[in-house]
């Protein structure tokens, strides 16, 4: 992994706030695989479930999790597989060989995006001013995943068990995203861990 940099490797905060209302953590160099296939094709869904150890989430805006792998529903025939850093080549190869001859597509998009976790006491306030989507817990339960806008760019937002949000953002927008976050958190204090 020499010479690999995360999209947010360059950010620094001169004075990290001790009692920050917003805490940001980049889940560095996680494996991102985009999987496409027909959800009504049982051979496809069963093969994928066998390889990953968990069934693909078929309900809109839902997700599935097993170990360090998280699967996001993106569209009726499209999923995002988030796998442990460095394992994406193996997972892709396993899926390819298991799905050989079937109608599917798998693309390694790890270098095109990154995963950022946002937590903190002021998280609700931050989400309210950053995205048009209603992130209140009554509307956004744990395990839900939505693709929407965040600071006028796109983000895939997932609610974690601990109430924090995982955001998948584009690599090319990572710097812009961070500058927005820094500005939007000014009233609350921002810590990067």
């Amino acid at each position: 992994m020499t010479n690999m940099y995360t999209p947010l490797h360059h950010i620094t905060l001169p004075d990290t706030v001790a009692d920050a209302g917003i805490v940001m953590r980049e889940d560095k160099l996680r494996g991102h695989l985009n999987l496409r296939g027909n959800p009504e094709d049982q051979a496809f869904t069963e093969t994928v479930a066998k390889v990953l150890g968990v069934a693909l989430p078929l309900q809109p805006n839902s997700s599935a999790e097993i170990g360090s792998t998280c699967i996001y529903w993106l569209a009726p025939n499209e999923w995002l597989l988030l796998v442990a850093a460095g394992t994406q080549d193996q997972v892709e190869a396993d899926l390819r060989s298991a799905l050989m001859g079937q109608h599917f597509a798998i693309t390694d998009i790890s270098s095109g995006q990154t995963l950022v976790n946002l937590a903190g006491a002021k998280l609700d306030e931050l989400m309210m001013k950053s995205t048009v989507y209603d992130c209140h817990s009554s509307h956004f339960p744990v395990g839900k995943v939505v693709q929407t806008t965040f600071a006028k760019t796109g983000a895939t937002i997932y609610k974690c068990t601990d109430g924090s949000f995982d955001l998948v953002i584009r690599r090319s927008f990572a710097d812009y995203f961070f500058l927005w976050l820094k500005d939007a958190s000014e009233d609350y204090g921002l810590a990067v861990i």
Partner: protein
Amino acid sequence: MLHIYCPYCEEMREEEEFSYSGEAHIVRPKDPKSLTDDEWGDYLFFRTNPRGLHHEMWHHSAGCRRYFNVTRDTSTYRIYETYKIGEKPIVTGEKS
């Protein structure tokens, strides 16, 4: 701001997540070569642009990135229904 129900995400989303994609149900001619220039130009460029009920395509560009159809009144902006690509509208303005 419009509130639009995406038939694929199965929930209401803000207009900001969508982009408008023009008139729906325009069928591409099977044999373009047999068309006159007028007919081809009509297919490519000319739209009905009605005042009132309109069937149109929208793209959930910041969401699931799928196209779907919307029945909307172009003068009141009221949305009567949204439906998936390949489906037919229920609201057509024709008396049943």
